[in-house]
């Protein structure tokens, strides 16, 4: 067998094994015969381990042959000729996706093993790992996606599992409502993503990144659409990325997402999920090159988010929110780097940050011990006081700045007032109209309005 076929096989295994894990856990749960904790652990470690080895094999064969682009094409899943619609599943292995997939597998493997002990004997053990496997599949799909449809599929799986795990402790109110908030913002991002995909299909007739970017290995491609098209698609994608990576103005959900068990917070909001927006921008970076306006927008959004997050992070008093904002700061800087055009730097930054932050989140509950040992080494109490820059400001400005940081930049209130309320109002108005219309048709006023006080 020639080398490329081996590579194909390994590439396929990388994608397939996580899907297998999801299927096994899911089917066993569906038929009401969940696996024992030990067996589930065995499957988890086994599939992720072999998948990781396969991805490493792909990497080494690519290094050996000097190839910079390998494709695993599963063909069209759905094809409707009349309307020129097809859902094309294709995976690419290139300089962007291989590091990303290895990172995903290493982190998921480690955090998965962590979760096996952490959730030992918890009543939601199976549910956790079902969502976890779903997340893993989503990450692999999103990292390796060669078409925008594939990326969307992965993106959705990540979003769904993420919202479900935020609401993991659904017997309490705040996880459920925060999960809903995360879900709502993800939907907004998804809508933007979908719009981008449609425009892309419309402009180029293809969702294939290869054709779009000119079939050259990342990051060398050049986009094959017009400037205006690039700006339109890019703006939609930027909104999608901002929603997924919690950039301004969507940042409010990130600290609220720290509701699930510690390992899920670590892998989602410290490591992988939160970087997915930045990854999307990296993937379509040739489009950014096409339109300088777009690049300015990316840089601007990144900068604003970074400053915002650094400021809000300063006043957080609980470890998980503090780490959430710290994550956001770095993700925003990564976005800036992408906008400026430092693609490799952004990739290295992303990987480094993911490793560092997930370790920090995993050991978040050990904070008191860490503080004690630092105190002992330094020989006095730790008190960080206030940042030096702040001291230069007037007392009133200090208070205003502190308050807006404490209220997290009023991000949630702004979204509620500017998007949710008009949206709800519009639909209640339509509901009223419809009611009066149907009542008129029915010739009576029997039916009454059923209002829902969602938010």
């Amino acid at each position, binding site marked *: 067998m020639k080398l490329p076929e081996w590579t194909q096989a390994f590439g396929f295994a990388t994608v397939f094994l996580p899907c297998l894990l999801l299927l096994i856990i899911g089917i066993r749960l569906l038929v009401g015969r969940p696996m024992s904790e030990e067996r589930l652990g065995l499957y988890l470690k086994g599939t992720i381990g072999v998948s990781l080895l396969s991805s490493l094999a792909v990497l080494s064969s690519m290094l050996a042959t000097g190839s910079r682009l390998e494709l695993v094409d599963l063909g069209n899943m759905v094809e409707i000729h009349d309307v020129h619609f097809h859902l094309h599943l294709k995976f690419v292995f290139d300089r962007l996706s291989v590091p990303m997939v290895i990172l995903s597998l290493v982190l998921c493997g480690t*955090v998965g*093993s*962590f979760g096996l*002990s952490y959730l030992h004997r*918890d009543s939601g053990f199976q549910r956790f790992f079902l969502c976890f496997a779903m997340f893993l599949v989503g990450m692999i799909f999103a990292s390796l996606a060669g078409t925008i449809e594939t990326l969307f599929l992965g993106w959705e799986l990540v979003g769904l599992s993420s919202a479900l795990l935020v609401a993991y*402790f659904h017997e*309490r*109110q*705040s*996880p459920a409502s*925060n999960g809903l908030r995360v879900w709502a913002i993800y939907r907004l991002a998804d809508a933007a993503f979908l719009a981008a995909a449609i425009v892309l299909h419309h402009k180029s007739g293809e969702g294939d990144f290869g054709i779009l970017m000119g079939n050259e290995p990342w990051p060398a491609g050049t986009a094959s659409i017009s400037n205006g098209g690039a700006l339109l698609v890019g703006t939609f994608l930027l909104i999608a990325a901002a929603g997924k990576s919690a950039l301004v103005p969507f940042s409010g959900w990130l*600290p*609220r997402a720290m*509701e699930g*068990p*510690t*390992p899920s917070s670590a892998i989602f909001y410290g490591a992988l999920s939160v970087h997915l927006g930045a990854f999307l921008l990296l993937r379509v970076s040739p489009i950014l090159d096409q339109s300088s306006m777009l690049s300015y927008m990316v840089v601007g959004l990144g900068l604003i988010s*970074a*400053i915002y997050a*650094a400021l809000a992070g300063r*006043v*957080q*008093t*609980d*470890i*998980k929110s*503090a780490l959430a*904002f710290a994550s956001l*700061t770095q993700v925003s800087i990564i976005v800036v780097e992408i906008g400026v055009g430092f693609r490799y730097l952004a990739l290295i*930054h992303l990987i*480094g*940050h993911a*490793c*560092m932050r*997930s*370790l920090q989140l995993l050991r*978040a*509950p*050990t*904070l*008191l*011990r*860490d503080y004690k040992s630092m105190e*002992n*080494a*330094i020989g006095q*109490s730790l*008190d*960080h006081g*206030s940042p030096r820059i702040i001291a230069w400001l007037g*007392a009133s400005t200090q*208070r205003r700045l*502190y*308050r*807006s940081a*404490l209220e997290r930049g*009023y991000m949630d*209130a702004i979204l509620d*007032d500017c998007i949710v309320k008009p949206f709800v109002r519009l639909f209640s108005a339509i509901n009223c109209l419809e009611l009066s219309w149907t009542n008129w048709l029915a010739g009576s006023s029997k039916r009454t309005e059923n*209002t829902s006080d969602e938010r």
Partner: protein
Amino acid sequence: MSHAIEHAKHYLPTQGPIAVFIHHNTLHAFEHLPFDEAVLEGLRIYGSQPYWPEAKYREEMLRDRIQFQDLQAVLSRDLGQNGLQEIALGTTRCELLYQMLRFPVLTGSDSEIRWLFAQSDALDQFQDGVDLQSGFAMLDSTRHWIMRVLRIHLSEVVTNIPEDIREVFNHFPLRSVESWDDSKWQQLTLQLLWQICKKGVRFADQVKHRAPALHRHRDVLLKLTSFDCDLRVHDLLVRFTSSFLDQGFAGWAIPQREEGFYRCFLSLFAEKSLWTESWLRPLRGLIASERETVSNPLESIALSLDVLGVPEDKVEGYIQRTLLALPGWTGMVEQMACNASWTLHPAPKDSLSEFLAVRLLLDRLSASHCIAESPSASGIKLSDLLSLDESAKSDPRGRSVDQTAFDVFQIAQRLGWSPGRLHSWSVREWQNVVDEIARFDDLERRRMFHLAYEHRYRSQLLDAIAEHSQFPLKVPANVSFQVITCIDDREESFRRHVEELDPNAETFGAAGFFNVPMYFRGSADAHFIPLCPIIMVPKNYVEEVGPLSEKQAETRRAQTRLLLGKASQSFHLSSRSMVSGAATALLGSLNAFPLVARVLFPRLTSKIRSRFGTLVRPTVATQLRLERGTDTEVTDKGAEGFTLTEMANMIERLTGDLGIQGRFSQLVIVFGHGSSSLNNPHESAYNCGACGGGQGGPNARAVAQMANDPRVRTILKERGLHIPDSTLFVGAFHNTCDDSTHYLDIDRIPPNHVSKFLAAKEVLEKARRRNAHERARRFYSLEMTCSDEEALRHVERRSQDLAQVRPEYNHATNAACFVGRRGRTRGLFLDRRCFLTSYDPTTDDATTSILMRIMQAVIPVCGGISLEYYFSTVDNVGYGCGTKLPHNITSLIGVMEGAASDLRTGLSQQMVEIHEPVRILFVVEAKPEAIRSIMDRNPLIDTYIRNHWVQIATLDPLSNQIQLFQEYDFEAYEPGPRSLPTVSTSLDWYRGWREPLSFAKVETCASESEGVSMRGKETVEARV
């Protein structure tokens, strides 16, 4: 006003900052009430459950943790004479209630009951739990009744057979009555029974309950609009309060904290802001007017209450409910204001009323915004809201006829009440039965189950002790060495294994600070920490100092530590900041190595880390600066070190408590204990409670150093306490999490003693392995067939594993405390559930002053531990802190659940999951008179015992007679038949078993030669 706040304060949780976790009675505020009433008050005020749910107790019945005879015993004891009263013809109250306990009485809504009769075989077959014989008896009596009476009556129209019963016979034509088989008779019987029950219950008045009153505006609005006004208030309040109380975690401290909670809030929220949540928009105006009209928080509270329309007579209740709406944070504000002078940023004195003032401002805004926004509440004035509470006026609701009838229907089957018999009941009998069933509601039944649960363990333990002390094992005459540990229940197994391995060894238990209260600072520590029970305030400061010969090396190591500490601090901060964070993150991939290593190979990683750690760790060859220098100042706060007299006093008292005086062996090893684990915000709770949540190693070391000091021994000798020159004390430390032991100051052991020490050490090494093995049976993640070595490795791994949420089980399963000579319990397998306090009644004086001071310490400490475990177990969400998995450390003072929530107090689900919630049972080797006189002298102990917060029994020092404190006084306890199994070793008993174990006699603990167990018989007789 301030009186109302003062009063409401008592109901707040009293847990302080989590770094110092002290077990205490969760319902401390209700200790003046009997236990049973107090838990109901807890239900009323906190809404937290008083007992486990009934279903949980029934599960325990399946595990044989409750037996029918326990239920019977506690029921007849509880009812007393009333139990014998006849409720209905031929059935006493006791029988009726017992049947309700024995099998569950199902219930449901009317439609559920209808469904049950329509869809299940409830009308075809007797219920589960009706045995064959009583079933036949019931069929037989029904047959007689129908054939003898009913058949004739039915044929006559004039007799008053109700229509319902007549209808039953439409389906059972009496023509063919001769040919009916049993199943047909059964159907008929049940149908008749059901109809008669319905009919009869209709005669009786149903017991009615009022819907609970609504106390706060939020409650009324929640009912009116189904919108919870508290949510947004808490969202803001949690954020603000945690910033206000922050102990230096945030990189930017809240401005104007020093001005107090109220003013800090006003100044922060008086500023213009970019945007405001819509409900908060009027806040600026409110603050402006507040500043003009109000000069202090108390006035602000009065104004708010006025605006809210709280009537004068309800102010106290309103304030109480308002403070309890966010109990964790509110309680912490109070704790930081009153009991936290040792923290970095304590809160100002009257913070609680300031907090209340702010809270009421926000409540006002949230409620009026809710009224304005929702159509269903529009037009209502804020001040009228409380008087709107309809539920207080509405008619009380009772259970429906069908529900009650269904209860009677089930009970009738079990008690063999046949349809004929019920048919003949008078209205009075029906009323009696209905009342009785209603009175024995869910709460009452659960109380009975709880009592039975305690009864089961209590009778097992008392029987075991009575039998064991009747035939005690031989205690050694030639003692090889003696071990003194903390009284902690976790040391019980360790002591037992020591005695098993060396039958000539003796063990003792004393509160783990070993009567040396001190402030201690280790050679590499930043601060002095108190090492003594929380109720004491130490007066002496003890420091650990390095050896002179290594001074330079020590300084170098200290400098390296300082550097590393600074580095890790700056990493800690900068990794979260913007620019330097980017720099760190670029190199962040390096974190992958520790990440993978620590998660997948925790034990190995920790070994490597500690290998590197030796480069900077301070030397172990340190000394304690115990003795006060001649030129040391003595101030109010205390002084450095102890005087020789103080040392002699402490040793005299410790040895007196232990009853070890006059029988010192050549080697006495004193074990302090503590626990270390990772990713565990509650780590301090696992440490020694007698050391105020610290580790007891330094205390043990201090005791050894003092008792070895010849000058101290001289003073003691003058007082008549002789410690032989050949006796050596050695201090040691036992880590209860990874079962490691460290021996302190071993370089100072004189050469003559070395072989003796090494021999003892070998025994102790084996004992700790066996201890790890015995502990490991409770960990489901380890095979039960493992070897000692594997078990030890497993517990070592646990303590180093970031992912481990149960590093050890701490005091879980604690259930008893024995105060007396070890000889009475030596060799009894107590399953790590019993605190063991040494006390020798034969050496005590006539006023039992030794017992008095022992009881003063153990009753509140062990009682507090037991009660905190009790409440956190029966209602883990209400009294405990819920599951550990989403915990989030906030402000360095406590944990929240997830992103933001109330501060959670109490114990986590993972800490209590194997606990059996029973009140602790003290068994004291003394005469009941001694306890009575202690109760007279100490009101706290009296309250604890009389109000039944703890159970207590006495074991006669000279015989095996046991007296148990029942409702009002001690009563003789009749032990059950002899049944204590005998095993060779502990392993033989616990092998292959994960659940709690009953008692056994472990023979290997017996010494070859008879010793001094009943020594001093005459003196005791003379005294008591």
